[in-house]
């Protein structure tokens, strides 16, 4: 993994301001930040590993464990909230048997909340991968999951 990481970091100058872009580049590759990433970035940039880790934990974009094949993102923006997004989230949690922020044991689905995907006219909205499903009701949640799974 170290060599792979070095390859990912090579295009960067390794200045302090590159820390967040480097974390993003690593996550783009692995879909999460493996432990080795912090050490490599610290070494490459000279920024202490604690600071690198500190920056990573501050931002909601970064994940610290492997993600599922499908990222199920439930929009909990204001428009979705007033149109019942909480019930959609609960239905998904029940259907996938995981809590928001977790990944199913077969690494098929990860479930998370996001703030506004900008499709407020379709509220409540769920994204599976890049597909947007709008005007959802709790009973339609299973259909959405089945549909995304059939497209494997």
């Amino acid at each position, binding site marked *: 993994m170290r060599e792979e990481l070095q390859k990912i970091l090579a295009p960067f100058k390794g*200045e*302090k*301001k*590159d*820390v*967040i*872009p480097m*974390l*993003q580049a690593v996550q783009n590759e692995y879909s999460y930040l493996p432990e080795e990433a912090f050490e490599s970035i610290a070494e490459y940039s000279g*920024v202490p590993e604690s*600071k690198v880790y*500190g*920056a990573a934990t*501050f*931002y*909601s*974009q*970064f994940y610290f464990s492997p993600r599922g094949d499908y990222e199920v993102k439930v929009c*909990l*923006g*204001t*428009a*979705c*909230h*007033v*149109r019942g997004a909480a*019930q959609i989230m*609960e*239905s998904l949690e*029940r*259907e996938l048997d995981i809590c928001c922020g977790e990944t199913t044991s077969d690494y098929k689905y990860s479930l998370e909340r*996001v*703030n*506004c*995907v*900008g*499709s*407020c*006219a*379709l*509220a409540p*909205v769920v994204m599976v991968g890049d597909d*947007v499903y*709008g005007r959802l*009701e*709790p*009973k339609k949640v299973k259909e959405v999951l089945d549909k995304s799974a059939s497209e494997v």
Partner: protein
Amino acid sequence: MRQKFDTIEKEARKAWEELQESGVPQVLVGAATCGNATGGQDVIKAVYKKLKEKNGKAVVKQVGCIGLCYAEVLVDIIKPGMPRICYSEMTPEKAEELIESYLFNDDPRPDMALGHFGEEGPEGIPKISELPVFKSQQRVILKNCGHVDPESIEEYIVNDGYKGLLKCLEQKPEDIVDEVTSSRLRGRGGAGFPAGRKWSSCLKAQADEKYVICNADEGDPGAFMDRSVLEGDPHSVIEGMTIAGYAIGASKGYLYVRAEYPLAIARLRKAIAQAKEKNLLGEDILGSGFNFDLEIFQGAGAFVCGESTALVMSIEGNRGMPKPLPRPRTTEAGLWGRPTLLNNVKTFSVVPQILNKGADWFASIGTEGSPGTAVFALTGKINRSGLIEVPMGIELEKIIREIGGDILDDKEFKAVQTGGPSGGCLPLDKLDLPVDFDSLLEAGSMMGSGGMVVMDKDTCMVDVARYFLDFTFEESCGQCAPCRLGTAQMLSILDDICEGRGREGDIELLLELGDSIIKGTICGLGNTAPNPVLSTIEYFRDEYEAHIRDKSCPALVCKSLIVYTINEEKCNGCGRCRKSCPVEAIIGEKKEPHKIDQSKCTKCGICYQECPDRFGAVERKTGQENLSVVN
């Protein structure tokens, strides 16, 4: 300089005119995030398919959003000699039919059309500017969105693009700052700080290097104005930032864009490359000797980074926390300790027009104290959700009733929320309020960056307050105690109220905590965090009291305070609720009245939706007497 620009403009115009005079029709498909979410890309495929099948020719372009989110997917067709006609709610099938009818059989299909642009149009199709949704709108910041191809610098130039920059380069930096100051432009990020004052203080600051930063880290959960501008008109932001660079003496700019906006980032990258190629950005711009370069920085997801000092920390590679007080102004010591000019996307994007058309033109729009227009993402329980732009000073009522087409399903209006997590909720009797920075602030809300969420009588205001506070609590950077602990305390009181554990005195405690947070925190996130709670207490105190005293949620939203029951007299025993219940909480024989086992019920509401309207047997109830009967 002018000569160089004239050549660029001439080339662009030539390409544009060739297209207009080629006799080839143009098909414009709304392909911003909202259009794509409703199937924009499938519609494009269908258009190509039909063209291929018929062996026809047309220029198919993806354009940004004209703001009619409720009517997506939008397809516009420009046939030679005809005005541009806009078609709404397109599906791949409908699009194929439309292409066949209009492009090949000259039938403009009034049945599918929303309206036509320009003065004259085919019979049966209304003028788009006279539709209720557009009549009161005034497009300044969004003037190009959905009209020009965001990936074509030529189209931007033909529509007066980069003329503001040219005028700017012909003047002295001081003159530019004066122009911005006399336009009385106020920052569109939320607080409405006079842009001219910021620019002037940056110009005066002495340093070896200065920076321009565009805040495109749109964080308000329920708003997408900045994204639409970036996706639909990226060059206007680039031009505005370049003008700012010249005015304050900076040669480097950063666009801090939310990483969740991949399309906006891609379009910005392309636009930056195009501008550099035409010498409108980069070294020695138009031979003026002025250098300006732009870099995109992807924000990694932190609401507090909307605060200027936190955003600067983030670009520098740190946790995005606001700098402690006392701190120098960002305009004096910002990025890497250098004077930094930080403005919102919409602020920069309107600057080119101010220079091009003059400060007086801009100042003549809107009101005395808040000139110009306001862009809102109008959403929630409203018929026509979308992106709108109105002159400042317009009444809230007009936005909601006329432009928004009133409340969904003819329900009753309850509140309108502006300003996102830093704003407030305004009730019915405030609907005559003019929309401008100062009036909204005075009423306990704020302009914010442009989220406007409409709520009907089925929205619980205590739940809404809890929702926003939950957001700010999660997003608090944790640095100062009043915000970190204060929002946690307020949230736990609101949780209690919503879950039936509210006590007398809770409202007073919330007010007291809110007041201390406002006074004690060090940044704009913290000292506006209590606003949603304070404004709902001010205008909807009775709802808080119902929750606390009667254990009742009048809007039937707060789960702990409602029960689902089946009315035995109405239940026909059809079994739909039983089959759909995810936790098998419903019992009953076929054709016999069913019952809900309250110990298993998770109150997901599926049975309530499933019960056919003709029975209406599943009932939602609230209040102490109903709750105690069931328990």
